[in-house]
Structures are given as structure tokens and as C-alpha cells.
């Protein structure tokens, strides 16, 4: 029986991205293996106001969700714009990568990526101020993510135009 054709088997939406968690405990090989078997997705670019309920509703469209862990500001313990979604079956997570990634939640295009698996502590932002790293450095004004980035909001307005 003729086998599948590689040329027709493209499933690029479920590919692993270039991002690697720098805090991952283990070597690159382990990390790759876990990513390829994972049932867990990292979800980014959420509004700070997006709730677990909203995430559950959206991500349930690709299969049964086992649990959701909302990312929290390490200091404030409030949502800081990311979460983990764990499915019972990897196939359902793959469907989310194909059909939920890159669509909108709370009017924002969200981004999903494979995650090696939730471990206690990973629900906290790793930025110096307690939120996500990206919110430390971004220059734009995003009302759903606390306004200006931390760095940008610290520079007096008159000088902002001269930076970078």
C-alpha cells in the first residue's frame, strides 16, 4: 500500500517554535523530547483581564481541557497576561495549535506554543517588576497590559523620544 507523501504531510502549525525556556531543568535533548510529547500549551499576549473562564471556553473548542493555570505577577499575584492550558490528549492540543493559535481572545491575537509541562513556580512572571519579561521592555502603550512597559514608563516623557 502506497505510503503517505512527505510533501503532502505538512502540519506546520503544530511544529515546535524556536523558543526554549531558559529556566528548564534538564538538557536540550530532554526539553525537545518533552515538547514533542507535551499536552500543555503556553498561551501568550493575553489581556490582564482575561479570565480562566474565557480561556476555558475558547480552548475547549479543540478538546477536553484538563486544567488551566493563569500566569501571575510574582509580586502582585494578579494575572499578568499569559497562561498554561493542559489537555488530556496531545491530539487536542495539536488542534489548538492549528485552530486557536493566532485567533482572538478578548479582541487580542493570542499566541500558543508547546510547553514542556507545568511545574510549580512557572506560573509567575519572570520580569524584574514581577510581570512578564516582555512587559519590562516594550515601548508601546497597551491598556490591557498595564499601559506602558515598565522601562518606558520610568523614563520621563520628555526624554522618551530620544531613547533607542
Amino acid at each position, binding site marked *: *500500500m*502506497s*505510503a*503517505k*507523501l*512527505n*510533501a*503532502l504531510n*505538512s*502540519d*506546520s*502549525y*503544530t*511544529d*515546535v*517554535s*524556536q523558543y*526554549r525556556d531558559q529556566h528548564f531543568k534538564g538538557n*536540550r*535533548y530532554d526539553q*525537545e523530547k518533552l515538547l514533542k510529547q507535551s499536552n500543555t500549551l503556553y498561551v501568550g499576549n493575553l489581556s490582564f483581564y482575561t*479570565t*480562566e*473562564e*474565557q480561556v*476555558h*471556553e*475558547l480552548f475547549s*473548542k*479543540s478538546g*477536553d481541557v484538563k*486544567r*488551566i*493555570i*493563569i500566569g501571575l505577577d510574582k509580586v502582585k499575584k494578579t494575572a499578568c497576561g499569559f497562561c498554561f492550558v493542559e489537555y488530556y490528549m496531545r491530539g487536542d492540543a495539536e*488542534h489548538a495549535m*492549528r*485552530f*486557536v*493559535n*493566532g*485567533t*482572538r*481572545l*478578548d*479582541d487580542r491575537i493570542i*499566541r500558543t*506554543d508547546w510547553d514542556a509541562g507545568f511545574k510549580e513556580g512557572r506560573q509567575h512572571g519572570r520580569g524584574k517588576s514581577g510581570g512578564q519579561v516582555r512587559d519590562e521592555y516594550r515601548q508601546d502603550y497597551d491598556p490591557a497590559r498595564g499601559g506602558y512597559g515598565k522601562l518606558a514608563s520610568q523614563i520621563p516623557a520628555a526624554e522618551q523620544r530620544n531613547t533607542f
Partner: protein
Amino acid sequence: MSRRRHSDENDGSQAHKRRRTSEPIEIEDRLESLICRVGEKSTSSLESNLEGLAGVLEADLPNYKNKILRILCSVARLLPEKLTVYTTLVGLLNARNYNFGGEFVEAMIRQLKETLKNNLYNEAVYLIRFLSDLVNCHVIAAPSMVAMFENFISVTQEEDVPQVRSDWFVYVVLSSLPWVGKELYEKKDVEMDRLLSQVEGYLKRRVKTHVPMLQVWTAEKPHPQEEYLDCLWSQIQKLKKDRWQERHILRPYIAFDSVLCEALQHNLPPFTPPGHMPDAQYPMPQVVFRMFDYTDAPEGPVMPGSHSVERFVIEENLHCIIKTHWKERKSCAAQLLSYPGKNKIPLNYHIVEVIFGELFQLPAPPHLDVMYTTLLIELCKLQPGSLPQVLAQATEMMYMRLDTMNTTCIDRLINWFSHHLSNFQFRWSWDDWSDCLAVDLDKPKPKFVKEVLEKSMRLSYHQRMVDIVPPTFSALIPAEPIFIYKYMAESASSLPGYPVSITVGNAIKNRASNEEIMSILKDVPNPNQEDDDDEGETFNPLKIDVFLQTLLHLAAKSFSHSFSALAKFHEILKALTESDEGKLHMLKVVYEAWRNHPQMIAVLVDKMIRTQIVDCAAVANWLFSQDMAHEFTRLFIWEILHSTIRKMNKHVQKIQVELEEAKDKLEKQQHKRQKDSGDEEDMEKNSEDEDGQLEEQIDRLQEKVESAQSEQKNLFLVIFQRFIMLLTEHLVRCETGSVDISTAWYKSCIERLQEIFLMHHVTIHQYMGTLENLLFTAELDPHILAVYQQFCALQL
């Protein structure tokens, strides 16, 4: 996010592959790529690309013949939308190398036999269509093709075979005729006429009980929802009347006619259709989905009529494109929009119709529902000036026809529309639908809007719903999803459970142990105490009420909080719900407390089943109980029920898999021991122990499987029994009152019964015997029995 298919760094396996092997894999990839992508992204014409490729492949034949054969056979099976491109290629190769042509035909026949053996009937259709188009390319002699078709049609004379079997053979022949009808008629018109008249006879005597169950709309206007073979027959008859003139199909081989007609043809070997096997799974019959006609596309090319063969071919090709590219929505959208011949048809309308046709297909869409939502969004991105308007037009049309739309399909429409809106800031011309405000809220239109707003709220938040609809729509806005804590309501202090609710609430807040809490709960009076027989713990509904209301109230902040609460007090909850009444009451309390937040109810019920606080039958009984009758037609009820059935099914499957694995393990172990026999006695004794352990495990798993299957059967019996009771009650009441049975509720209920059959047909099939003997007997009201009969007709 990287869209690249082959990431070079860090991808251990890929680099591994590259180091180990070198040329063969790369050549194979190159050949595959050349063949699969012929004509794509080229400035030259398709014909000249094909000519070039034929030259390359001919040169490669001495070294890579088998690979080329394999690739061509695969594209025949997997790229049916490019059928004529590849038949042309094969035609050119055959003209240059007669032997290769012969070998290709043989390989195709082998592949055809394999696909039929493996129940891959949809792929077999593409293979046969490919073979028939090879007649147009002078690769296969027309008379031998006619002979194959004659053998196929003779299946209609077989006795005691499922109708779906002979259906398939008829379908295969008819659906190839748009491509090859003209040529076959020119060469063998007498035989073809005989063939078609046999088909006509078959179609006349065919049973069509299944049709009502598969129709998206029950109304005949504006477009009849036709049975698929009937529709195809009408299309072929029209084609025949038009003397087989077919102008839509792209036929690259025409440009090569002078070369191809010099080629020698091959005869297809006589092909006897494989006999019917009991485990054969023929495709289910279908109803053709139509929502547009030529009056709907305001300007531009005219839409081919419903009985034109062009319509058939376009729809087939669009379905095939989706089937090939569904995993990659950008490619899928691009491929759909670059459909060859698109300038002569209102392509956007065809695409939208085909997509909704799949989304609404009964029993189930060919792909995941959410795929269609994101595909439509991609299409809107690529055609922002035209597609959104067609989509809006389609939505409007479907709204107008909700009265006769199948309930299951309405659900899918609700889910699609709310998800779609959430990607476009919920912008919609709600005022256009203000007619829904003029009728009762239980009528289809206001019901639809209500459910859409409820689903939209789940993806956003309550205030958003208030903001997006006109004030006149306020009655349709869902309730704010807040917890209703009865022990904090006005005059709660007079409730019998009030004192304990305070105590237990404080105990929970102060992290009291389970024992302490249990002893606090002992103080809850039991309203059932009168008829108690004093033996141990009896079912105390108030105890459940006080504890659960208080616990859920404290945990109401989020799903996670509630899940933690259920986990933390699992022991107590299990103790309280030991009896069936306990389980039922627990569900009742959850509903009462969270009735404004159906999403929360659903996730809590899910958790309670998974942690075995309640069982599936309890959930079914609760949903059908009198207390829930007023919610019976709401979408969330059915989402919970179907989710419950699915969990039950997955549970059974899981244990079955464990059992199979254990059996395999034992077999392997025994095998191994046989091979190694002659070892010392110690080893043998150990392995016998191992065997014994495994056998014990297998016995236990066997018991588990049987008990799970029994639970599963019981679940379906409960559900069907409840349906029968409800429907019979309604029918009897209407009869005695001389009232028309066809209320909105009745339509909804009977279609929900159909839905159970359709959504879980694979599982239900195992229990047909029991269902027929116990429930769906001849004594049943014919309206209800009809559903069962329609269901049976799907498989016959």
C-alpha cells in the same frame, strides 16, 4: 511562531537523518516535490510544466521507476482535486513508455484492491475516477472501463447485502461520468445506456428512510435538501441530455491530444468487486447541502444550477481541497481561492456553501468544528472586500430559516457565529433581527439570539453583551453569571440549614479537618427523618445542600478555586453522595447555586464525574428530571449530556486498551518462554509466577471492562427510556386534547433523540439488540419508532 516546516537547529531527529542517509531520501523528496507541486508558482503554463516534468520523469525511469510509481499512485489517491493534472502526466509518460503505463495501471489496481479491503471507500472513489480519466488520456481502453463499470453495477443485483454497499458502487460509477461520460458514450453507447437504465431501476427501488435524519432543513423551499444519489442521478441525466458536453473540468490532456492519441492503450484487467464482508464499513448516505442558487450572487458569474454537473464537480473539488489542506488554514484558504476556473463561477458563494455544508453535515462534520471557523476567518483575511459580505448574507439566510433547521445544526451555527463574532469585536447588525423580539422567547429566532449571546458572553464578559446589542434586546441578554447563595439571601436566617451553614463556612475558612466538618454536619436536621429506619447514614438532602452551597460559595471566584474545593473535600462529598438520591441531589444543588452560570455547571459536573462523586447515569437522570424540564431546550443541557456520554465511552475504551495490552504482554511473555525453554527450573518458576500475575491482572481487567460496558449500556438505556417517556407523554396529551403535536418543544425533543443516535452511533450499535427488544418495540408510538428506524436505515 515559526512556520518553517524543517527547523534545522535543535531538531535531533532531522540532523540524525541527514547524517545517516544521503542520496536516496533526497532524490525521493525531490521527486515527490516535483510531482506534488507541478505547475505551482510557475510563470509558464501548466501544460508546459507537465511536458517538462514528463521529460524529467522519463529520464529517471531506469533508476527510480518504483519510486515514481509509488508517488503517482499516492497522488491519485491523495490529491483528487488535481485529478486531471496527474492523468495527463501519466498519459504523457505512457505515450513515451508503454510498459510504464501498463505497470502504472497494474499498480493502481493493486492499490484499489487494498483500499477496498481496508474500508477506505472514499479513497477508492478517487482511484476509480482517476482510472476513468485515464481513458481520456489514451492510457486505458474505453471498453475495458465500461466492463469495470458493468461489474460494479451488477452489485445492485446482489441479494441480502446492505443497501449502502450497492449504493457505493452506483455512486462510484455515476461520479466518474462527468469526467469520462462523453468518451465512454462515444465508444460504447449501447452498453452505457443499459448500464444507466439498470441504475435507474435500482434508484427507484432504493429505500430512503434515512433522509429526514440527515437533512439540515426540513423544508423543501427554497432549496430541496436532496438525497445524494438522487441528486447525482439528476445531474448525470442532465449531462446526458446535454450530450455529455461538460465545460468546467480543467483538462490539460486536450492540449496534448496529438501526442496522446498516438499512444497505445492498455486494457483494465477484469475486476470483480470484492464480496460483501460482515465487517465492511461502507460510507453512510448523505443529503446534499444547498443554500445558494443563481439568484443569490448579485453580480458577476452565474452559479451553476443544482442539477448541473458543474455544480457537482465544483463541490467535489472544493471538498477535496479542504480534505487535503485542513491542517494548514492559510494554505487551505489560498488553495480554495485559487480554484482553477474561478473566474467563471461565483467562487466565494461556492466556498461558503461547501464549508457550511461540511459544518452542518450529519451525523458529524468531516473535520473539527473549530477548523471551519478559523478557515472562514482566513478566507475573510484574503478576500476582505468580498467574502465577509457573502458570509453575512449566508448568516442572514440561515437566521431567516431557523424554523425548519435541524436542532443539532442550529447548535453548530450558534457555536460558529459566536466564535466568529468574537474575532470581529462582536460587530453585527442586530437591529436587522429585531423581528425576534416580537415572538415568544422559546421560538427559534429569539432562542438562537439568546444562545449566541450566552456563548459570546463566555468568550468575553457580561457588560460586553450589554454594550453590543441595542437596548431593545435586553430580554435576550444572558443573566450575569453570579453565584446564588441561598444562605445569604434575604430571610435566609429562617432556613433550617442556616445555623450550620455559618458554622461549616467558618470551619472551612479556618481549615478544619474533614472529621471536624463531618461532625458539624451531623447537626443538620434530616427532612426525610420520618420514614427513616434508623439504620446508619440515610440520605440527607439538607446536609448536602448546606455543605455544598457553602463550599461552592467560598470557592466561587474561579474554576480553579472550585476544582480545588472539590478536591480538598472529596472524601466528604463522596460520603454524602453514596446513594443514587445523594448524587441526584448534589447535582440539583449545583444547579440551584450556579443556574446563572451554565458554563460553571458544566465544568463542575465534568469534574464530579471524573472524580467519581457522581456517575454518568445520575447526570442523565438529573438532566431529564422534572426540576430541569424548564431548561430542557437550552444548549448547555445537551453539551453536558453529550460530554457525559463521551466520558463514559472514553472510559470503556481506555480499559479495553489496557486489557488488550495486558493480553499482548502475556502472549509475548509466553512466546519468549517457549523460545527460551530448557532453562533452569528457577527461571521457569519465576516466569510462571509472572504469568500468574498477568493472568490475574487480565481477569481483573476483563471484569472491569464488563462492568464498564454494563454501565455504558445502562446509561444509554436510561437516556432512551427518558426520551420515550417524555415524548409519549407529549403525544398522548396532544392526542387527547386534539392538539397538533408539532410544537417547538416537540421538534426540539425529537431531534435531540435523533442527535443521541447520530452522535454516538458507533457505541450504540453494540447495544442494538437490547434497544430493540426492550425499548424500540412495535408497541412504541410510530413517531418515536420512526427515529429508531431512520437510524437503522443509515447502516443497512
